[in-house]
């Protein structure tokens, strides 16, 4: 994997929400091994940008390229390599942690067994059979992180991944990001907390 050429590219993005123009002419690239933090005040358009990058919504102008190809045209390849963790975690509260993970893996086209190492990593190995409904806010966030880890994605898109996490959880996410970058992975994230990583972090400020 080349660390120089951007794998993910945003070209001239514009986002209109209702009456207001959140951003326009926004272009940037994320290369392998790079972690991009989107910064900005409340309401500056970070969530809107991440949803566009993830292929969930379309920009009013511009396009997003993955390995040089428009993601709206190559959905299957792009989605197979991407993990999105948004404000809504997407866990079924009536299923157990393990069931949630194995479904997510099947949807990503992977073997069903690879969930448990990820659970160990986020510190929930002993809750694998608990229903998600019975977990606290921070524990759910950890399950969503485990899903992202297990999906083996190259690109992580994380909207405020530190939400609801205690100190050990915050440290965990930082370590995971560092390891991901070291393996040549990409990540785009937002956070209002300072993200201090040893390497690979770049930032982009929205007006």
């Amino acid at each position, binding site marked *: 994997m080349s660390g120089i050429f951007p794998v993910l590219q945003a070209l001239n993005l514009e986002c209109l929400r209702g009456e207001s123009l959140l951003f326009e002419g926004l272009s940037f690239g994320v290369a392998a091994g790079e972690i991009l933090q989107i910064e900005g005040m409340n309401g500056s358009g970070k969530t809107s940008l991440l949803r566009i990058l*993830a*292929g*969930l*919504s*379309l920009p009013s102008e511009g396009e997003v390229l993955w390995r040089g190809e428009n993601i709206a045209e190559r*959905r*299957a*390849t792009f*989605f*197979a390599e*991407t993990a*999105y963790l*948004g*404000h*809504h*975690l*997407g*866990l*079924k*509260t*009536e*299923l157990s942690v393990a*069931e949630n993970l*194995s*479904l*997510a893996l*099947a*949807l*990503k*086209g992977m073997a*069903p067994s690879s969930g448990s190492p990820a659970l160990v990593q986020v510190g929930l190995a002993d809750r694998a059979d608990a229903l998600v409904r019975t977990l606290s806010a921070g524990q759910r966030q950890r399950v969503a992180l485990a899903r992202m880890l297990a999906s083996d994605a190259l690109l992580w898109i994380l909207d405020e991944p530190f939400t609801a996490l205690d100190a050990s959880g915050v440290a965990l996410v930082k370590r995971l990001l560092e390891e991901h970058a070291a393996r040549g992975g990409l990540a785009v994230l937002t956070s209002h907390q300072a993200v201090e990583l040893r390497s690979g972090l770049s930032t982009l400020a929205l007006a």
Partner: protein
Amino acid sequence: MKLLLRAFVALLQRDLLLAFRHRGELVNPLLFFMIVVTLFPLGVNPEEALLRKIAPGVIWIAALLAGLFSLESMFRSDFDDGALEQIVLSPHPLPVLVLAKVLAHWLVSGLPMLLMAPLLALFLSMPAKAVWTLELTLLAGTPLLSLIGAIGVALTVGLRRGGVLLTLLVLPLYIPVLIFATNAVTAAGAGMPVAGQIYFLAALLALALTLAPLATAAALRISLG
């Protein structure tokens, strides 16, 4: 292909599991169906001759409403908790995944009604020879309701309180199914041939099986966007 099959099965399994976990959910479209049918003898005069006459219509309208009532559960909760985003972000073709969810909906709502209908027909003193036709129309018709309904839910799921709007979108599409099905059952009760109506329903089903998942998938992407 094998991976796609696995995703299909996993999603189907998940929805059935969710239906089982909410013990209520499994049995309730059925109970609803039964309750609506029992409303008619209560609201209308309970004479046998009259009941026999309106029985096919009542049973079919009840099936239709029971299906409709449970439609929203197909995508609404997945939308609210973000699970739908994760499904849409799967690399597998979305129409196939949609089909798994529709199948689960039918297994939980349509199939039990199919099994229950003969009993209710008895309650409304429907003639025995019409009951067979009723079963055939339900067999072809209830999957149709699930398939068509899925398009409606997918379109309205982004709107809060889309429930009643959904009804408005979906019911007009249900009407042809209703007309053909009740027509067949009434004809069977009168000893007339019904093959024509059944073939028509089957043809509609084949059409819906191919087109509805595509439309539903497109509608889901729009609702999320």
